[in-house]
């Protein structure tokens, strides 16, 4: 059925947050040119960053979920959100790949807690980090840290149009070329993660003469060993290479 006809009820949406910096939520709240249209088109019944009140229960036509699951109650909440949502998109690297909160996945929970908090560790309820898809079915991934405008818009539009979303699935290199950025990896030998990183940022860092650090996470089927080899040729140590690949993708790569 064409989207401009038929029911006029605004889709109900919720924005939820687990362990993360809330940057993705901010990105939506500061969705500059589109914020007004977004609030006109959607009924955000739960969005803590925008409204102090809100009904957590749903039901939701769209649930946008940011953050990594690092505490047991979050897993319970996530499952409840899923059960009450027609469509659930994971938003941001934390929710999709583990992101920054998952850096700790490389070590033992207790040892890391000791390093950070020193004592009274029995008060902590945190556990090994998990991505959303470890607990629930995820209908789409709005990648980024925070997501780019295009994919965020695509997530919302897919609901308004009642169709599947098509998120960006190619390397940052493609965006660099579209933008005309001179390749930092080839031309200057900077350890740029662009070739294995999912695009969507518009090649923001390389455009500012900064090597990509893969904040959007690895693109699917990236050739990780080949880029690691290249970094070794550039003189990076094994640890330096590991850090680059596990900064945002620790969960995917440590498994």
């Amino acid at each position, binding site marked *: 059925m064409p989207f*401009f006809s038929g029911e006029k009820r605004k889709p109900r949406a919720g924005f939820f947050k687990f362990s993360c910096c809330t940057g993705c939520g901010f990105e939506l709240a500061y969705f500059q040119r589109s914020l007004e249209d977004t609030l006109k*088109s959607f009924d955000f019944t739960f969005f803590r960053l925008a409204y102090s009140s809100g009904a957590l229960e749903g039901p939701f036509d769209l649930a946008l979920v940011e953050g990594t699951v690092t505490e047991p109650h979050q897993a319970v909440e996530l499952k409840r959100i899923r059960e009450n949502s027609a469509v659930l998109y994971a938003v941001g690297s934390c929710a999709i790949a583990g992101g920054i909160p998952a850096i700790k996945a490389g070590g033992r929970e207790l040892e890391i807690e000791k390093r950070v908090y020193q004592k009274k560790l029995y008060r902590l309820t945190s556990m090994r980090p998990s991505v959303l898809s470890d607990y629930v079915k995820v209908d789409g991934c709005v990648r980024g840290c925070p997501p780019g405008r295009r994919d965020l818009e695509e997530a919302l*539009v897919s609901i308004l149009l009642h169709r599947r979303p098509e998120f960006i699935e190619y*390397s940052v*290199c493609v965006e660099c*070329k579209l933008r005309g950025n*001179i*390749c930092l990896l*080839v031309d200057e030998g900077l350890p740029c993660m662009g070739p294995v990183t999912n695009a969507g940022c518009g090649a923001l860092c390389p455009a500012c003469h900064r090597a990509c650090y893969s904040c959007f996470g690895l693109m699917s089927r990236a050739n990780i060993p080949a*880029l690691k080899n290249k970094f070794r040729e550039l003189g990076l140590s094994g640890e330096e290479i590991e850090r680059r690949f596990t900064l945002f993708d620790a969960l995917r790569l440590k498994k």
Partner: protein
Amino acid sequence: MNGENTFQKNYEALISRELLAAWVEGFKENFRLIGPAGGKGEAEFREVFSFNEINLDYQSTMLPPGKTFLLKPVEEILSFNITPGGPVAEEPPLPDRKRILFGVHACDTHAILYLDKVFLGVFPDPFYRARRENTFIFSLNCKTVSGLCFCHLVGTGPFLKAQSGYDVLLTDMGSEFLVELKSVRAKKIFSLEGRPPEGRDLEKKKELELELLKNFRKDFKADGLREVFLSRPDHPVLKETAEGRCLSCGNCVMVCPTCFCHDIYDEAGVSLARIKRMRRWDACQDYFFAKVHGGNFREERQARLRQFVFHKLDYEGQFGVKGTVGCGRCIRWCPTGIDLTEIAKEMMK
């Protein structure tokens, strides 16, 4: 071009660098001038506002001039206004700005001729055509050769031999420039003042080319590849290169001057007032490029790398010429230095 014409009107002339500058500056009134600019690091083709910005000695650029300015990286090809009665198509206006694409090397000129075969064929693309018609191509014969150039092996350089499809050909002769008007429209619009070339000048041009030909280092046999490619599509060198080095990042095809593939997708704002149908350069090295519901025809990295190598060095049946113009960009800009000529050589062994 033969010399008889010069007695009626100057279609060829030797002019000083200063006169060339003045000549080109004179076009600025009616044309947007695009040329290779920037000397440090890589030159790039961009709009220039004075002749001095143009780097006449540039070696190569990352993005090819033809593809970048005739088939824009991202472009709106259609839009739909959403009205209560349904979407109504609205055609974006065709580009009509007159432009000069200045300093296009022989390989890149041949690449434009290749793109013409794609976009001006049975189904001409209106945007490409409009840009092409409004763009005057000033080709420039090369002065230097890089270690990655192989135009000499595929007949596209280093000096431009094509007789049509571009407008002006420039050759740096040292103290002077040889300017040749090549197209009917160039002969009609542009007038040349300067000394008509004599026999010794043309002799010198030939010498310059011969001198240049000595500097090529790439060497592989382009003939006979077809049989090898078709009989050994699973040659181990493809698998080894794909798995060991290929990142599927798409750099090779994005910087390729003849790679014409593009994606078409719709962009709708949250207001759904207007939907834009866009096209964007696409990369066959991308996993999803040839995927359909029932399967992916180039699921393996090896298959995607092979598509690139074969499409560039073979598949002449497609447009009657090879897909490569020997510019060497795909080698230069591959993060892991994959070299299609080396792959071909290995396969020919």
